[in-house]
């Protein structure tokens, strides 16, 4: 994964969601996991990375190319984004949710789009639910449709913003299984999560973000076991207590 943040700051009013963040990743990591307290800047980091948000200052480059305001649309088209609250289009069926961007954005014919959408849904165990509206699906199913929609065009980078926070543990497991399967197939994945177990098991590298700054960026073994920074230790102690 080739990823670089240079002095990136994101300011909302008086609040700094990202505070002069710099980061360089040039390794062969496949899965990057963001952890840290709520309001620490994880969502903002992912939105900047996904091209949904332009930082107040600083530059971001992904896979060697620098993000510019003019290039954001193409950047978004090249990568996939999955939201905490699913954000499916409620007036479209699961199949249409996946097929519509394929047809209108990626230039496939309606037939090709439908076939590809059904294949993508089947891959996440949703073959029987393709013709249902989002309101007729469970939370876990909706999130898997969200992932199918993001993955179907073959994105360079799959970005997931707390994809399991709105789900109960069983449905969370469904979704995280799907993510892990994707990573196993070679998909580059960046996600933020409160599931430390998943971070430890699946991440190639863990990023700890708090108060808009990256406190620690290291392989999971280092962050969780051998050498957590003092702040990370305190955080882990709090979240692991119960």
């Amino acid at each position, binding site marked *: 994964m080739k990823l670089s943040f240079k002095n990136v700051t994101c300011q909302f009013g008086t609040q700094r969601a990202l505070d002069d963040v710099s980061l360089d990743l040039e390794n062969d990591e496949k899965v990057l996991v963001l952890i840290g307290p709520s309001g620490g800047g994880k969502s903002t980091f992912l939105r900047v990375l*996904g091209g*949904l948000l332009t930082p107040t200052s600083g530059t971001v480059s992904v896979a060697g190319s620098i993000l510019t305001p003019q290039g954001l*649309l193409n950047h*978004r*088209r090249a990568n*996939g*984004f999955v*939201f905490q*609250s699913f*954000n*499916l*289009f*409620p*007036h*479209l069926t699961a199949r249409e949710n996946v097929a*519509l*961007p394929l047809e*209108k*954005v*990626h230039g496939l014919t309606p037939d090709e789009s439908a076939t590809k959408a059904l294949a993508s849904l089947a891959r996440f165990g949703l073959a029987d639910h393709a013709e249902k*509206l989002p*309101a*007729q699906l469970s939370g876990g199913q909706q999130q898997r449709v969200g992932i199918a*929609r*993001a993955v179907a*065009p073959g994105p360079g980078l799959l970005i997931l913003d707390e994809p399991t926070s709105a789900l109960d543990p069983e449905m969370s497991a469904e979704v995280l299984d799907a993510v892990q399967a994707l990573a196993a197939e070679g998909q580059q994945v960046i996600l933020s999560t409160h599931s430390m177990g998943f971070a430890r098991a699946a991440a190639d590298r863990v990023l700890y973000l708090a108060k808009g700054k990256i406190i620690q960026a290291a392989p999971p073994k280092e962050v969780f076991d051998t050498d957590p920074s003092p702040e990370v230790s305190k955080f882990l102690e709090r979240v692991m207590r119960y």
Partner: protein
Amino acid sequence: MKTLFTIILCLAAAFTHAASPLRIGTEPEYPPFEFVDENGELDGVSIQMAEALAASLGRPLEIETIKFDALILALKSGKIDCIISSMTANDERRKSISFSDPYVTTGLAMLVGKDSTIQSLEDLKKPGTRIVAKLGTTGELFARKALPEATITALPQDPACALEVAQGKADAWIYDQLSIFHHHKQHPKTTKALLSPLKAEQWAIGLRKGDEELRTQVNAFLQEFRAEGGFSKLGERYLSEEKQLMESAGIPFIFDGEIKPQTPPSEVAQEKTSGTLFAVLSLFGVGIGITALVKLSAAPGWRKSLPRNLLVAAIIVAALSGACTFILNSLNEGYTWNWAGIWARRAFILEGWLLTIGISLAALILCLVIGIALVVAGRSGIPPLAATARAYSELVRGTPLLVVLLVGYYVIGNAVGLDSKVWVGILLLGLFAGAYLAEVLRGGVESISSTQFEAARAVGFDRFQTYRYVIVPQVVRRVLPAVAGLFIMLVKDSSLLSVIGTAEFTKQTDIARAATFTGLEGYLPLAVGYLLITLPLAWIAKKLEARFTYES
């Protein structure tokens, strides 16, 4: 015992008779005959006459102010006892009511443009001559009879008629001498008054048919009042300028005309009321029945317990028809129905109905275009454009449609040289409704969560695609009920175009109603006619709503 009872009965009768007020109807929009003075009090020749009449009959006076073309309806339905409102006694009106002896002799005159070549009635007979008249007046009746080749527009208000001539939108306004004289004084630079009478007219007090007792009393009063010099005094007090003017022009003053003895009221064949009542009732019955059945068949549990539901439906329909029968029956006692006049004008009314459909459709399309344009401008992110769109919406929504129409037609329409009452009507209606639609649509767009916009961007949609595929389909579903309501309102609001004289449904029905001096016979078809347009609209909206549902 029996004599005592009789005495009490007589006393009671005498007492109630003495105490029952004399209810006189007038439209106080015709100075100096009947008007409201600067203190808000009724005044004028007719008001003074009314007071003298009530005093001579020894009854307390109650004056009801009623629109001129509704006066006859009020009299027929028993709301008032007589009309003193500068009303010309003519044969058309005699079909509906009876009249006292006349008290004023006047004539129809013309208001024409300053430089007009029109001199006499003959000049008006050319095809294409544009005549205005006040709705329901003898001027209108005369124009329709005497000038079949001319284009005749009937407007509900005097000043509008005068403006039509002053602005050159009409060639002549036919109305009584005094009005023409006064309106000419309002527009001295643009108009000319031709006062020599086109047709002599006599004003009389309107009375309910069959109320011969009051008729005799009123005639006796008029004779006495004239003998006492009452009319001369009123002439001096209210009409001295006019009196001078008319006498110098060699036209006899209005109170001094030859008073012809009143011919006994000619009996015009009246329709039997029972047949009419039956027709009205069946209309209501059928209407309610159809509506109820449509609603019922849409209910999910309808078929499960058919007999019970049918029974309940029958009871409801019966109760409603019963109520209608009761209401109409109580009305029927003092009301003579005259459907023949309206029926004879059915093609004329149908033309208006079709025009209403056309105007509504065109205005609806314009309203959509304007509403969408306003929303796009409002959300364009270009501050001056957005502010203008918002200001437009707020200004228009804060103004009554009536004012928009009058100002739009007589001021703006005149300034840009747009004369067609139909196109001005469509334009103004569309512009007006567009402002409302914009607010409905804006509310719809803003009710869509911002996460939908973000999701659409995330899958790679550009701005247009975001609206086209994600936002608009959701907005349509959400605003459909409100938009359907708005469209129905637009259809009904198109009736207001009658004030500028567009020949739409309400206007045509008004003309037919005024020409036949009928009341409810005009209003009932009006209600049915609008329902025939609005009910299908509501039905289509329901179908569309069902089609666009996506929330379980």
